[in-house]
């Protein structure tokens, strides 16, 4: 690329950012993001899930931020967010360049104009990303790409192996109103958890005809909400902060409930290890696929593009996936991971497209069911109100 083209690219991306910033919620027009990545701005402020941007603070040997800084000169400030709510609130400040958003927040960010369209052609590693993760409702809106897939995983059922007998195999263990673990059951504290109840009903009550656990008609939704109201009586604590649920499992306040692999890993790395096990139950599971998105008000868009390319490279993907405990979005990472852990990519079903398609990945529920049913599904606001009612 000639010098002039680079300059033009910088100017263009600057203009695009300015336009996006001024336009606020405007996503109209054929804007597809910048046409080239300019020179790095020397800094990068990103909102991340814990474990996505390690710089040696948690474990001195776990560090992929420092090499990125050395390669690009982008001084990286990761801001850890504990919940999707927090991520959206932080993105709304406009002070960050990007975010590793989950599917229950991405639509809100895309439609709300908080994130800018992403030109995926500028990300060299995009071509290697698992095709099943591309062009999905949680990263693409009306045909426009808004981000680069990072990694995915299932919501798991975890229990204390020393205190829960027999070992559960079904989500029924957390929906049983006569559970012997009454008061020690946990569930994810987010409206999106209603989908977990719908998933259980999809298998146990086929007469409801649930097809998509995020697009529920009124009778389906009511059944799921009633199941959760019944579950409320056995819940000790809901969790949204992963450190809180980690502590609750460690000291026995919680014995069984939904979790993420990273929490299981942290509990097993306790000294002494907390005896826990986590599985995908027989009914299958809901899950998440996280997406790197660029803020529409990013002050350092070039560094953000460099980061998105860096974090999806096979080497870094292998580091993040192993540290966090998730399937890397770039399956090429498996070649590197298998050098040290030959079972990892099988355990996480990285190349198992059937498993991936069986997971109900988080997305924002809309009134428009997205199929022949039309506008009869419950909107996200209905989910939020129902969640308030369930918790009481």
């Amino acid at each position, binding site marked *: 690329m000639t010098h002039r083209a680079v300059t033009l690219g910088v100017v263009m991306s600057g203009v695009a950012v300015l336009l996006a910033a001024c336009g606020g919620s405007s996503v109209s027009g054929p804007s597809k993001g910048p046409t080239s990545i300019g020179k790095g701005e020397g800094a990068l402020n990103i909102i991340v899930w814990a474990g996505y941007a390690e710089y040696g603070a948690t474990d001195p040997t776990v560090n992929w931020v420092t090499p990125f800084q050395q390669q690009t000169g982008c001084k990286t400030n990761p801001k850890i967010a504990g919940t999707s*709510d927090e991520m*959206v609130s932080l993105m709304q400040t406009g002070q960050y360049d990007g975010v590793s958003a989950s599917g229950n927040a991405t639509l809100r960010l895309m439609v709300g104009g908080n994130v800018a369209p992403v030109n995926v052609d500028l990300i060299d590693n995009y071509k290697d990303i698992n095709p099943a993760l591309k062009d999905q409702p949680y990263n693409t809106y009306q045909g426009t790409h808004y981000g680069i897939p990072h990694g995915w995983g299932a919501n798991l059922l975890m229990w204390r192996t020393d205190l829960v007998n027999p070992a559960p195999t079904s989500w029924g263990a957390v929906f049983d109103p006569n559970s012997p673990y009454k008061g020690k059951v946990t569930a994810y504290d987010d409206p999106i958890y209603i989908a977990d109840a719908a998933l259980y009903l999809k298998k146990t009550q086929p007469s409801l005809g649930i097809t998509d656990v995020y697009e529920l008609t009124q009778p389906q939704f009511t059944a799921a909400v009633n199941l959760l109201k019944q579950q409320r009586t056995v819940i000790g604590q*809901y969790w949204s902060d992963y450190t809180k649920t980690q502590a609750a499992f460690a*000291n026995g*306040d919680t014995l069984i409930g939904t979790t993420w692999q990273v929490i299981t890993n942290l509990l097993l790395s306790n000294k002494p290890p907390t005896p826990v096990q986590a599985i995908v139950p027989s009914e299958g599971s809901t899950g998440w696929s996280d997406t790197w998105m660029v803020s529409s008000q990013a002050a350092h868009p070039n560094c953000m593009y460099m980061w998105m390319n860096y974090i999806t490279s096979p080497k870094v993907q292998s580091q993040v996936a192993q540290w966090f405990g998730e399937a890397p979005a770039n399956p090429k990472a498996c070649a590197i991971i298998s050098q040290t852990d030959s079972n990892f990519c099988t355990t996480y079903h990285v190349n198992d497209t059937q498993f991936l398609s069986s997971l109900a990945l988080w997305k924002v529920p809309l009134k428009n069911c997205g199929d022949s049913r039309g506008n009869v599904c419950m909107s996200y*606001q209905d989910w*939020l109100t129902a*969640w*308030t009612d369930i918790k009481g």
Partner: protein
Amino acid sequence: MAPSVPLPPGFGHRIARTISRHSKLRLIALLTPPLGWLVLLYLGSLGVLLAAAFWHYDSDITFSITKTFSLENFQQLLADPTYRTIALRTIIIASLVTITDAIIAFPIAFAMSKMAGPRLKAVLGVAVLMPLWTSYLVKILAWRLILSAGGVLNGVLRPFHLSGPGFGDVAVYLVLAYIWLPYMILPLAAGFERVPNSLIEASSDLGARTWATFRRVVLPLVLPGLVAGSIFTFSLTLGDYIAVSQVSSTQFIGSVIYSNQGVSGDLPLAAAFAVVPVIVMLLYLGGARRLGAFEAL
């Protein structure tokens, strides 16, 4: 002719002279910054909050707020019994916290201002203030350790075959009663300071028993301090959502307001619900005024 001031008659100098000659100007200059702060930032943001409560939020297609007047947020709050339960729960816990703190604070405040010598008074003062030097969050997390299943409280109670309340409404009550206690003790102690010892002695000289002296002499005189303290404990409990989120899974007014931020972004509904504690506090302050709590201020 008076000797002229050796300074050149500059503009700033003239202003200084004008201000020093006019006491009203002095008062205006003194009060404008703090009052401006109060009116613009405090009442201004309260006004925005009230206005936002009437806006419309489209949660389905645009996720944006439309600034058109409607009562839909209040209708939703009134139609759904859950919000009523949550508001009621918050008010009940706030009342219980206030009553408990008043009962605990009374003897401490009395001892501090009426019984203790200067040295003990200083020690008690520091002891009351000390918890305020610790972060609010640290105190809550300490309570999590106390109340958790394998925690300190259960360890102490186990020999008696009892167990603690665990996390829930009782935990919220305990934690908030603990955290806000200094805010009750300090105004109450200041209230006791203003009760002349001679009145207590006179009451007992005239034959009043301890209880009668307390009820008919001391209590009316410390009422302003008690009300001031209760305004703190009551309003702080009404608005708390962090302690609530750490030691319980039940919802309070603050937690509902918080959960309407972020992904859902329904600020109008949050604003409408935030009007509830404002109304409760206005009623509370009105009641306190009728009790004559502000006359001695």
